[in-house]
């Protein structure tokens, strides 16, 4: 959906982030140091840069100073506030602290892409079209009525497609913190969604984990 530049000097982490974000439908370009990152930003024109602060050579903050129009999510290992404030003051769109969960990263990537309008406003699969801006779903051009929670659940599953989401994670992301019910609620809503859209084989139940939207 979007072209992302992943800047991290740690090979395992860089590859991990690339793999996950590729699975959910983005195009990922890895960069392992500041100099490489700067030249790739120029030549590839990515929609978003995921930038580690502690880089050999040029630090992440230095790179951020040189960027002007590219959205940046910076990754820091420091728990102190200083780094976060510094990064946000330099114009970063968001930050994430190591160690992080992949669902957290995909959510933030999606949020920034949507905010900066670099993401497609609709997603289509099979005979279904999901319009994220008007929050409507169409099946064969016919409007399907979903409750707000059902739509949020569908959106979360699509944004994390090919990755399994635990029921707890879904509860946290869709119902946020105002709900303290049990995970059965999630099962009920998933059933509703499968039934309304007729996508039983798309939303898979992953044994002992949760649900995964496959495409």
């Amino acid at each position, binding site marked *: 959906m979007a072209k992302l530049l992943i800047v991290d*000097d*740690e*090979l*395992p*982490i860089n*590859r*991990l*982030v690339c*793999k*996950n974000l590729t*699975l959910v439908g983005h195009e990922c370009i890895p960069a*392992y140091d500041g100099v490489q990152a700067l030249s790739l930003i120029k030549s590839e024109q990515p929609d978003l840069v995921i930038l580690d602060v*502690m880089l*050999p050579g040029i630090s992440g903050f230095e790179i951020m100073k040189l960027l002007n129009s590219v959205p940046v999510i910076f990754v820091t*290992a*420091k*728990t*102190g506030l200083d780094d976060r404030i510094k990064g946000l003051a330099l114009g970063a769109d968001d930050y994430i602290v*190591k*160690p*992080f*969960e*992949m669902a957290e990263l995909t959510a933030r990537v999606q949020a920034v892409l949507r905010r900066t309008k670099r993401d497609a406003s609709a997603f289509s699969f099979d005979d279904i079209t999901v319009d994220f801006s008007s929050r409507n779903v169409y099946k064969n051009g016919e409007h399907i009525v979903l409750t707000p929670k059902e739509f949020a659940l569908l959106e979360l599953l699509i944004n994390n497609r*090919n*990755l*399994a*989401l635990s029921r707890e994670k879904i509860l946290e992301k869709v119902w946020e913190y105002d709900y303290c019910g049990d995970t059965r609620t999630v099962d009920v809503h998933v059933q509703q969604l499968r039934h309304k859209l007729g996508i039983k084989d798309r939303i898979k139940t*992953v044994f002992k*984990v*949760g649900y*995964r939207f*496959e495409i």
Partner: protein
Amino acid sequence: MRMKFFERTYLLTFILFLVFLNAAVFALAMYTFHNNIEAAESVCQTEFLSITDAFEKDYEYTGAQSAGLLQATYGKFYKGKNISLKFITDGNVGYSSISESIPVPAENTLSMTRNDGKRYIVISKDVCEGAVTMVYSKDVSYLDKEFTRLCIVFVSGSLAASLLLGAVLYFVLRKLYLPLVKLRSATGDIANGNFSVRADDNGDDEVSALARDFNIMADKVSRQITQLKDTADRKQNMLDNLAHEMRTPLTAIHGYAEYICGAKIPEDERVDAAKYIMSESMRLKDISEVLLDSAFIRENGISPKEFSLRGFAYRICNRLNKDARNRGVELLCTAEDSCIYADEPLLDILLSNLIENAVKSCKENGTVTVGTEICGDTVKLYVKDTGIGMTQEQLLHITEPFYRTDKSRSRAEGGTGLGLALCKRIAEAHGTSLEFASEPQKGTVASVNFTTLYNNLTTQE
């Protein structure tokens, strides 16, 4: 505070000066006035004496019959000379040009009298064998006028002098206080945290001495603050690095586990992910071991005992020989036999680390030599390599935690970035230091000195 002191000195000096000046002027005025009065009195007495002498002679000549005429003649004559006379014969006043209100003084005495706002000198004397009492009076009001004039001159003089002094004193004091004011402004700046400011300490008076002492104090304080800042910075840096080094493998482990758990991926990727989890957890294990060793030394110190350096060095070389050969590096041991006092397990960590670093720095066909140099009571243990070497800049930092001369290579080989920091701590715990000599592209020599005498071992907490 500064101006208060200045003002106090200025006002006090000025007031003291005014008091003494005016007292002196007043005393001078009074003295002059009294002098003038005395002079006038003596003039009057002389005058009166000559008048009475003349009158006695004339009285003798004319006799008592025409005394009234004589008195009038004298009175009128002297009135023209501004002298009033009065003649009293047997209690009856004869001729008189003296006002009745002026009292007649006792016989043969002089008195000063005021009448109608005027000042008179009055003298009485019995003449002609007591037949006549002659009273002399002279208007000396000019004395008062002169006194007033004198007062005006003195007061205006002292006023002018005071004003002039006030101005001059102000500037002189300002100039005297200038070093103090400057010192005060410098101290103020330093108190506000600007440690680059120094007071002007030229000169040899007390203020300059104070400024010099103050500058010394400021130097010391600023040095200490810089030191504290450096230490705090280093600690913060170390903490940040540690957080990064621990969180990075954690992120990878968690991420790959999540990936295996939830992503729809083929078998080979699953294996790759599992391998990353294993290697990253080894990295965490290495870091935690080094940190534990380090903490152990800090908490427990070292327990040195005597052992043979030769056997020890050969054992370690044998252990590491295989790794070296795999890289095409020759590991030689030329250690001579000598006994040293040291903590053997810790020294094992130190020497292994140095050898591993040396082997890693070598290209194929390189040589690493472990040897000793005995000099009196000390034994120098060194590890020499023919590797890529280091620049002076890199040498300064190599014992800092998490410093890597080549980050990507070190990571790829599983280095924690803490090895030399631990070696340095071990050397320091033995009361000695780790030394490096290196030249880029030529190689590096790492050395550490040990004592052969138990007494010389100074352990460091």
